[in-house]
């Protein structure tokens, strides 16, 4: 059943046991969220120091959505990840040093300086980087799922989209296409209340999760600040997908806690709204949950910040790309390299592998 979460309502009760996650899984979810926040905080300060060119976009307060959803995906699943979803890259296995090098336009960044901020996907880990035209990647994910179905493979594609992207045609084309062909694809709609400065009321007249049913498949609303709830919704959507039951739209309700990008002071957002959502911070919530289980979260935080400090030092020390290489790679020459498989740390996949 959909979990109703709206600004102004009390956070939903946190289930003590979702049944699918081991203690190690719960720690891992926390770790990925902490890594995402820590890396982005470090990157923001590097941006302010002039070390990150262009602009900088982060997903502060939205860490649960990418961490939780990516955690439900198998190694052979494929991901098209959005710009406030750094934790999905971390779950798949991209190292912090490559991410920080990416932000700074270094040769060792995931795109070797070709692209900035979170516009990347490591092909070796089964990910395809986003473009700025949103939500173009919904169709790409749909096409991946189409190929999986054509080849009879038990695999799934997933992509994340924002509330603003629901207004564009590609959103509708993808939902319709996926429904008509009953494709194994999951659309995670990250509703963070604002598309740049535009609030939801100026974006749609019907909550987009309702549209799923109109196209002919389930839409489910979850608390986007509860990493385990996001995981569970995605896990079930994947199960449906692999069973041949078609796509799912998951609306993860959250709040964009920072500006659209580093330059944006978001004066258009009422302070009270931000404060209210600060109380529902996804990391604090997972921390309370873990503390209840007797986990030493302070030690985990310490470990993560040490890892980020080392990665930042290494990235800062790494070279910029050679200007002479700027013209290379426009076309592929020779046989294309296929996408590789990513990490899939959820313990449930061990059981899945045992079944196979």
């Amino acid at each position, binding site marked *: 059943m959909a979990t109703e979460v709206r600004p102004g309502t009390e956070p939903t009760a946190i289930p003590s046991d979702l049944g699918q996650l081991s203690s190690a899984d719960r720690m891992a979810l926390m770790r990925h969220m902490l890594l995402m926040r820590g890396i982005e905080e470090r990157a923001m300060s590097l941006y302010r120091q002039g070390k990150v060119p262009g602009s900088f976009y982060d997903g502060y307060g939205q860490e649960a959505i990418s961490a939780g959803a990516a955690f439900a995906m198998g190694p052979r699943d*494929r991901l098209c990840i959005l710009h406030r979803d750094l934790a999905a890259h971390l779950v798949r296995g991209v190292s912090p040093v490559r991410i920080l090098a990416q932000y700074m336009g270094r040769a060792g960044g*995931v*795109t070797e300086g*070709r*692209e900035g901020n979170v*516009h*990347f*996907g490591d*092909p070796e880990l089964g990910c*395809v*980087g986003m*473009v*700025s*035209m949103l939500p*173009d*990647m*919904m*169709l*790409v*994910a*749909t*096409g*991946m*799922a*189409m*190929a*999986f179905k*054509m080849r009879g493979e038990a695999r799934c*594609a997933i992509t994340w989209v924002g509330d603003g992207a629901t207004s564009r*045609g*590609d959103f509708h*084309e*993808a939902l*319709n*296409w996926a429904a*008509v062909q009953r494709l194994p694809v999951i659309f995670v709609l990250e509703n963070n209340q604002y598309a740049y400065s535009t609030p939801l009321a100026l974006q749609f007249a019907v909550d987009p999760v309702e549209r799923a049913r109109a196209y002919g498949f389930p839409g489910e609303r979850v608390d986007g600040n509860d990493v385990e709830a996001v995981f569970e919704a995605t896990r079930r959507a994947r199960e449906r997908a692999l069973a041949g039951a078609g796509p799912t739209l998951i609306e993860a309700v959250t709040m964009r806690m920072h500006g659209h990008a580093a330059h944006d002071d978001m004066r258009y957002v009422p302070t009270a709204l931000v404060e209210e959502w600060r109380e529902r911070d996804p990391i604090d919530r997972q921390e309370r949950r873990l503390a209840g289980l007797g986990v030493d979260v302070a030690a985990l935080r310490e470990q993560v910040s040490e890892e980020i400090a080392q990665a930042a030092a290494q990235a800062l020390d790494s070279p910029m790309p050679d200007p002479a290489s700027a013209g290379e*790679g*426009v*076309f*592929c*020459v*020779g*046989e*294309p*390299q*296929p*996408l590789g498989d990513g990490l899939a740390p959820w313990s449930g996949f061990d059981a899945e592998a045992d079944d196979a």
Partner: protein
Amino acid sequence: MPELTYLQAISDGLREEMRADERVFVMGEDVGAFGGAFKVTDGFQEEFGTERVMDTPLAESGIVGTAVGAAVVGMRPVCEMQFADFISCGFDQLVNVAGKMHYRQRLAVPITIRLPSGGGFSGGPFHSQNPEAWFMHAPGIKVLAPATAEDAKGLLSAAIRDPNPVCFLEHKNLYRRVKGEVPEGRYVTEMKARVARPGSDLVVIAHGAMVWSALEATDDLDGASIEVLDLRSLVPLDEQAILDSVERCSKVVVVDEANATCAAGAQVAALIAERGFEHLDGPVVRVAAPDVPIPFSPPLERAVLPQPEDIREACRELLAY
């Protein structure tokens, strides 16, 4: 060798590639049960099934976007735009997602977009366009425009086997009008220009249907020796073949059926100005459609699309220069 129409040659090439490589599949509007608006895929569904000859929703962005997704996980989609004009609805997916993918993240996108293009039969403003230049300007996309049946088959095979996004412009006015001997079996035509008729006094450079207009216009031009260079591939552009022709002939007429501004021929003219200037014995002359939409009514359409008489006149003036 069997004699096939340009359209049959395209079907033949596509069928051969599908038989040889199970990753290749066709997707588009009405390509399956109906066999395509122009019947290029007639009978394909019977041979290859409904999944490999896929009738899609009416969604061009969806066609290109899902093809990109299928391609990056190992398929070789061949997308049909019912008319080339409709690629405007898939422009973003092609130019921003497909075209920039390999440069941005070293991920190949082997898709072929078949674009039934061109005018000459009262198709009107939305069924007559020649959109090749839109994609020549966008990095990462190859652009092919065959004129003969043999090249149509060989270049389509080349497009399908290429690891990059390829726009394949098949001229509708050649579908049934042009016939030629076409080798059986699979073969690939190189993405290079072809001397359609050698000459030494003047070269007409063209692609697609304009190759035939150029040949007709200069078949007997007051005894002058007129070369016709068929570009065949616009990206990559065979710069050496163009410069060789300029060196041989010293006078150049460049023909486009497309609207003149920034057309493929404008790029050819710029290339010649930059690198062939010393071989010229006169100005580079362009013949192209004026910058107006392609009108419906036959006399209006004839007035807009370059006719053999226009090419003949341009050649005569340049020969007299």
